[in-house]
């Protein structure tokens, strides 16, 4: 439990720091940090329970994009502002580093293995973002449609 609390605090400051570097609007700084915390905690607890990092990255970025969408609607600013900080912790820096280290040590097979894993994780993050976007669009559209039909029925 202590471990999770530490991770929450640490991931908040890490994402907020990245958000400062990318110069997000000042009033949304806390929310950017919060998006990062949510994504990271999902990724962290899933991998702790033994899920593969690729799947965990997918779920992490999926939730990040949905939360970012909600915030974007609330603040009326582009949702990319909330996404960018949030996905940075999920980027497979460790895998890419290991790939590089093995290539430098002339162990190309091992390097290729790590490199492919890094590529897969990047793909998973991307798929998470795209799926979430399509998902929210579908929901928004169906809500709007149901409202319209409701109004039509009500008028009659």
């Amino acid at each position, binding site marked *: 439990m202590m471990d999770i609390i*530490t991770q929450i605090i640490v991931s908040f400051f890490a994402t907020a720091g990245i958000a*400062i*570097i990318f110069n997000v609007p000042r009033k949304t700084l806390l929310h950017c940090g919060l998006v990062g915390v949510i994504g990271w905690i999902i990724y962290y607890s899933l991998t702790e329970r033994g899920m593969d990092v690729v799947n965990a990255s997918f779920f992490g970025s999926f939730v990040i994009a949905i939360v970012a969408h909600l915030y974007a609607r609330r603040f009326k*600013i582009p949702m*990319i*502002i909330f996404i960018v900080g949030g996905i940075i912790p999920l980027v497979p820096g460790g895998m890419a580093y290991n790939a590089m280290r093995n290539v*430098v040590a002339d162990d190309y097979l091992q390097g290729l293995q790590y490199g492919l894993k890094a590529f897969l994780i990047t793909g998973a*993050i991307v798929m998470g973002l795209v799926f979430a976007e399509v998902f929210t669009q579908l929901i928004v559209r169906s809500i709007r449609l149901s409202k319209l039909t409701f109004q039509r029925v009500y008028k009659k």
Partner: protein
Amino acid sequence: MVLQEADNELTIDCLLLAGRIMIESGAETYRVEDTMLRMAKSQKMTNAQCYATPTGIIFSLGKTQPTRITSISKRVTDLQKIALVNSVSRRLTSHMITLEEAYDELKSIQKTNYFLPTYLQVLAAALASGCFLIMFQGGWSDFPIACLAGGLGFLVLVIINHLTKVKFFSEFTASLAIGFIAFFSEKYGYGTEIDKIIISSVMPLVPGILITNAVRDLMAGHFMSGMAKGAEAFLTAFAIGAAIAVTLGF
């Protein structure tokens, strides 16, 4: 008739400026096109066509008017400017402000530097690097070294970027500095895990916005922009990786 044309010129100037600021600050290309077309529609230009890429914008009003082009050479990541331009376009399309007011506001947005002072950015990078170390299961004893490496790496990035304007060279030098700090800290007994120090300190240099934008552009059907941004992200990642490889070779 003459008045109408002068009006059109002002509108096109305003639209191109808005698109230019957005692309220079790192917005997605499809959002730039969408914003410009919405603004055009609010000014009763129904036949407007717009084609935006990361290196330039082409905007046309149809048969009667000359097509206008603006080329863009430098791009940074400045999310605040994107949000500001977005709010200007929102207010213009809902007719809360006039075209002249919008143009003045856009000009002042373009001139202003919204970045925090460099020392604050370096501090943020240092703090973020230290926090990433804990997130990647590093020990608290390496925390100060990771902060130092991340902060100094970012400082080197800013300085070299100011001196040479070659983005990949500055990223290469910055990760070289990070690699050497991690290497020497381990050699002289200040740090324990060189791998985790390097991975966490490199994090502030990761091209997060490029990756996100490349994908969103690709999914929106803007293959040219998506590919261009993907190539830029790949080159950045390659610069970081090459520098780390150099330090690991010691």
